[in-house]
């Protein structure tokens, strides 16, 4: 390691016991992005689940709003080392969205407006582990944080919680999404510190 910069503190952060290895607690909500923020009017929004055989199930914003909603409180962990505890969200569980979907696939590719993708095994999206969330901290989710809606998969590093989510593609084989293809880990478990390929 290089030199220590005398008197340098950096952004407010705390090392707190109980966080996954290598993480700091932050009190703000950093915005990290791979491209321009998509602006999606609600009348253009759709969420589509496509099975491995090409069958589709799709919801408009109104149809999505009519589904059973859940309010959840979760901890989130970004691969860039910041964590936020006790964040509150409202959204629709993937269990609800997948309830009438007939599939034998084990893997998914999550798609977003603007072209972002990330891969998540199907079993990591079900049984109460994931939501399509549209409210954060009591307010509608802002575009820079992924609004109108983002995927929320808090048990994996937060790059898997795809912003501006618009669909799920079920796949028989695991394939890398945007950051996975660029060097990040295929699975991304913060508790095993799976940040990069080969970790």
């Amino acid at each position, binding site marked *: 390691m290089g030199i220590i910069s005398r008197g340098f503190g950096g952004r407010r952060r705390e090392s707190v016991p109980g966080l996954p290895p290598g993480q700091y607690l932050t009190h703000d909500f950093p915005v990290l992005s791979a491209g321009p923020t998509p602006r999606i009017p609600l009348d253009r929004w759709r969420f589509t689940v496509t099975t491995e055989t090409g069958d589709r199930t799709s919801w408009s914003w109104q149809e999505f709003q009519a589904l059973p909603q859940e309010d959840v409180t979760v901890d989130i962990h970004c691969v860039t080392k910041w964590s936020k505890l006790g964040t509150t969200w409202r959204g629709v569980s993937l269990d609800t969205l997948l309830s009438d979907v007939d599939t034998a696939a084990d893997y998914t590719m999550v798609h977003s407006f603007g072209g972002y993708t990330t891969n998540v095994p199907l079993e990591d999206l079900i049984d109460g582990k994931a939501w399509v969330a549209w409210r954060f901290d009591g307010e509608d989710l802002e575009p820079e944080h992924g609004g109108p809606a983002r995927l929320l998969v808090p048990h994996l590093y937060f790059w898997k919680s795809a912003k501006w989510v618009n669909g799920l593609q079920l796949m028989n084989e695991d394939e890398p999404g945007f950051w996975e293809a*660029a060097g990040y880990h295929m699975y991304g478990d913060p508790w095993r510190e799976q940040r990069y390929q080969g970790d």
Partner: protein
Amino acid sequence: MNQLDGNAMAGDLREVFAVDVTAARFLCAGCGHAGAVATLRLWGPAPGQVARCPHCEDVVLRVVHAPDRIFLDVRGAVRLELPLADS
């Protein structure tokens, strides 16, 4: 947030290449636009640097820093043309 350009990647790219690459010309795999790497529109640096074509916004280069490795993904560039002498 004010967006940077490929000039800001000079240091990262210099860790991969032995010469400066910001003066290199890229050919975008998406639209065929050619230009200096320095003119790519840059998002990042976390979780990685994403350099997009100023013409079509497709991703041309991605750089991810791990503690002991650097990943450079160039699939968005059909080719890079690097000058050999000071131009």
